[in-house]
């Protein structure tokens, strides 16, 4: 499923500058597309714009074969799953119930969960190494555990595209690599993945294409080798950065320099 945005411009009410300005993005079916950029560069706004959560001042989004406006929410949720940066957990709820919400869009209003829905929930928890958490109350989870559970909910939707906002931000190395394995595995099954992250090294290693944002505009786009260069990164992040091939993986590796120590 292709995800495409053209000339996306978003302005939050009361904000002097647009949060996104004329951003183009095109994510090929079955590819892993990383979106990078400093804090406040518009990454999360881009996700909301692609999913129709905020109004566009200009531009248009196409999901699959249709413009975004042609999708009903329920239909869209069957095709595209998304994990927002955070959510509220004001009421007691088990992990199984939370992940079970990933099946809502497949059920009629009065229809009960079927065996296949329960199976989808357990499988998704297994893929995120969280099946042992199934009967825990979500309030008792650590930040990283909750994050894995929320990714599991997106997987339980059985979508054809995934959009994730910093999905591995709270995860330890083992679980971060586990989730990246899940995302790579998803692309091999033809699922389109948009991955918002601050993890430049991992993006360089795992993404097929990278979009680099700053102040709501695209500063670089292309393959990891094209985008992850000292020149691009220093300009976008405003910090001296060295880039060299990683001896183990051969992909670009980032080293933030210390200007004071460098003299």
């Amino acid at each position, binding site marked *: 499923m292709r995800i495409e945005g053209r000339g996306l411009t978003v302005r*939050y*009410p*009361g904000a002097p500058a647009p949060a996104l300005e004329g951003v183009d993005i095109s994510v090929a079916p079955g590819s892993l597309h990383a979106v990078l950029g400093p804090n406040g560069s518009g990454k999360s706004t881009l996700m*909301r714009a692609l*999913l*129709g*959560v905020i109004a566009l001042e200009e531009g248009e989004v196409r999901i699959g074969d249709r413009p975004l406006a042609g999708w*009903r*929410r*329920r*239909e*869209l*949720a*069957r095709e*595209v*799953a*998304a*994990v*927002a940066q*955070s*959510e*509220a*957990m*004001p*009421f*007691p*709820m*088990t992990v199984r*119930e*939370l992940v079970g*919400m*990933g099946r*809502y*869009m497949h*059920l009629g*209003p*009065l229809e009960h969960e079927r065996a296949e829905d329960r199976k989808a929930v357990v499988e998704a928890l297994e893929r995120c190494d969280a099946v042992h958490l199934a009967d825990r109350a979500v309030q008792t989870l650590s930040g990283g555990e909750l994050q894995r559970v929320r990714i599991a909910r997106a997987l339980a*939707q059985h979508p054809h595209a995934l959009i994730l906002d910093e999905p591995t931000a709270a995860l330890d190395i083992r679980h971060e690599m586990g989730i990246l394995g899940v995302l790579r595995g998803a692309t091999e099954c033809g699922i389109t993945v948009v991955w918002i992250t601050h993890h430049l090294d991992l993006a360089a290693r795992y993404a097929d294409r990278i979009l680099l944002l700053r102040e709501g505009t695209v500063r670089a786009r292309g393959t990891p080798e094209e985008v992850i260069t000292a020149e691009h990164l220093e300009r976008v992040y405003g910090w001296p950065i060295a880039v060299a091939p990683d001896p183990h993986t051969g992909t670009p590796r980032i080293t933030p320099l210390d200007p004071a120590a460098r003299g």
Partner: protein
Amino acid sequence: MTRRTRFAALLVVPAAAVVLGVLLGSEPIAPGAVLDVLLGGGAGPIRTIVIDVRLPRVLLALVLGGGLALAGATFQALLRNPLAEPYILGVSGGAAVGAVTLIALGVASTTSWALPLAAFAGALVAIVLVFRVAAVGARGGHIDVRVLLLAGVVVGAFFSAVIAMILALSQARTLQSAVFWMMGSLTTAGWSEVAIAASYTFPAAALLLSQARALNAIAVGEESALYLGVEVERVKWLALVVASLVTAAGVAVAGIIGFVGLVVPHLLRLVIGADHRVLLPMSILMGGAFLALSDILARTIRPGLEIPIGVVTAFVGVPIFLVLLRRSTV
């Protein structure tokens, strides 16, 4: 205890409330005589008391309590805050102003089918007003729920003043007392009140129950709910309006009864969890039981004298509100 046994245990409560409500009263009637009447026998004053006084009163408590708890659970899901409740949000106050105004103008009597609609209009005015007041302090379009609750309390206090003023200035002799409207009462309960309250509450309950999954999703956040396929704006407005209508129907019949919508869903969540497919129907049942039991207390604690029912619910509700407030991290 498994979930199933917990449900079974909970269902004993409304059943017990109904039995006690029919058996107990200021007039001592032997249980055997009550049973006799219920089975179609009995005659004279005993029959009148059981069939036309106690029975409708218990049923009215069930319907109103169920409606208030349902409205409370709904507001809490929409605002993602366990403190949200029709009384705290000022919705009940607005409804009472609507009802009192219509009566004072001589347009409707207290047992009018139109009275809930006037109360409904007042409830909607209250909601718009409370959200407007809260939005003044909002940054980036995000309303702080604490400010919203504060606005609800202040607007509610203002509505109380308005009710007192209308009652003081009004010429209408048919008016209930200010205490009736501000602290609630089931003293006027008769079969027509039951019919009015039920005819508004049942369809509204069916509508809200059909949105239970959507409310589950909205309770974790509107953005996530959209990603899960919920038409958030539509569900939000539908649920707000319907919960207000339920509240209004209750207020029109029995005045403002606070805290039912706070106490019942909160206690239920501790026992059965927060899945609205279970929480909403159980709120209806247990809210009804809670109000029926409160009413028994209100009318039997001092024989021959009735305490306003809102006093009883406040005595239970305020401590729970304070506990929740302390624990709330929003």
